[in-house]
């Protein structure tokens, strides 16, 4: 896969200045549920009712230094990989159920900048389009080094 030119699989190394570490205190986890994988979560779970939901591509949590404190805090979580996961049609159905039946408040979709990650945003956009109940959907694109490249709201 590394030789096909796909940006999602291309080998890269980042130089980090190890003297610019964050605060020495440990950062508490903001995760408040289990499971988290989109195939495993139930849209009917109580922690999704009326919640602000974060749908995060698997890699985002590793790319972002502030994933827990800035993005996961106060939200219920589902994670997925639009490149490697199978049976993704069920993802669209689950997202629709979250919007229609769990009456979620908002959906924030956090994806990497690599092209394959757009698929996850596509699932969310399709669920929103097909859902009888509309919710604000925020699309956030993260660079390989954890910077926010794009942050916008989808049309309902």
């Amino acid at each position, binding site marked *: 896969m590394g030789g096909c030119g796909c940006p999602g699989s291309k080998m890269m190394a980042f130089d980090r200045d190890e003297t610019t570490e964050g605060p020495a205190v440990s950062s508490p986890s903001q995760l408040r549920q289990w499971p988290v994988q989109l195939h495993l979560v139930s849209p009917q779970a109580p922690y999704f009712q009326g919640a602000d939901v974060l749908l995060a591509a698997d890699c985002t949590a590793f790319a972002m230094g502030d994933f827990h404190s800035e993005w996961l805090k*106060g939200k219920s979580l589902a994670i997925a990989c639009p490149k490697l996961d199978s049976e993704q049609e069920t993802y669209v159905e689950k997202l629709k159920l979250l919007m229609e039946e769990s009456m979620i408040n*908002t959906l924030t979709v956090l994806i990497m900048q690599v092209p394959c990650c757009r698929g996850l945003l596509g699932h969310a956009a399709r669920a929103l389009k097909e859902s009888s109940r*509309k919710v*604000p959907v925020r699309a956030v694109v993260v660079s390989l080094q954890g*910077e*926010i490249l794009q942050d916008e709201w989808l049309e*309902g």
Partner: protein
Amino acid sequence: MRPANPGKLVPMSAGPDEGAAPEGTVNEHLRTPIRDIIARFPQVGALLEAHGIGCVPCSLGTCALGDIVDIHNLSPEAERELMTAVGALVAPGEPVVLKARTTTAQKKGFSPPMKTLVAEHRLILRFIALVPAISDSLDLGREADRLLVAASVDFIRNYADRFHHAKEEDLLFARFDRESDILKVMYEDHANGRARVKAAVEALERRDRVGVAEKLAGYTEILKQHIRKEDDILYPWMDRKLSTREVGELYAAFRKLDDEYGEKAARYEAFVRSLEEKFASNDAEVA
């Protein structure tokens, strides 16, 4: 008014606890109403204009300089350029210290609830654009024209005010400090608009054609400026301040209000469309 010698200026969009400026310098100027600063240093008005900040024509001018710079969300480079120039005018030779900024990407476009309000503005502006034609053709001796004014007042009161301004005042503004300078300006605009409409109704009852035309023109002028302030300054600022949770709550509250209002919104849109067709065909006949 401030004392003649304003003291040192350390321009920065910082609150009183930032601690980066010498005591008695930054807060004194950043908390000064912009009208006082412009009155003493008229070139500051031109500097603000050059950065797209239109404080000079504001009838109130009570907003503090620091809030104005914060609300307009200039790029770090533009803010440094502006505040350096303001500092050079107001306190020459004093240091300029700007607040450190994070470099996260700015959100593109409005959030869904703000988009709703902006879309409602578009319909109100379409109506406002028709008011001169309505006034020009007005003959209050004709029942049809009296009904047209009454229908226009109904649009203003029930769509622009009861429906749209209720979303703003009861739901959106309620999440912010009602006593803030910028919201005081917005509430005052709403109140002034209502007063003009009330006066237009009174003129209609007297069958005073000139009075109706003048009051409706006054209303449209207030609303045009008001909508520009909201679309260009207030809403972008509020959108940056709202949390994701609040965006979702506002969106749900607006949709509930839309559902309660039912088909009336569509009827008001049809009303504006019918006026556009009527006055477009009148123009064609004249041409």
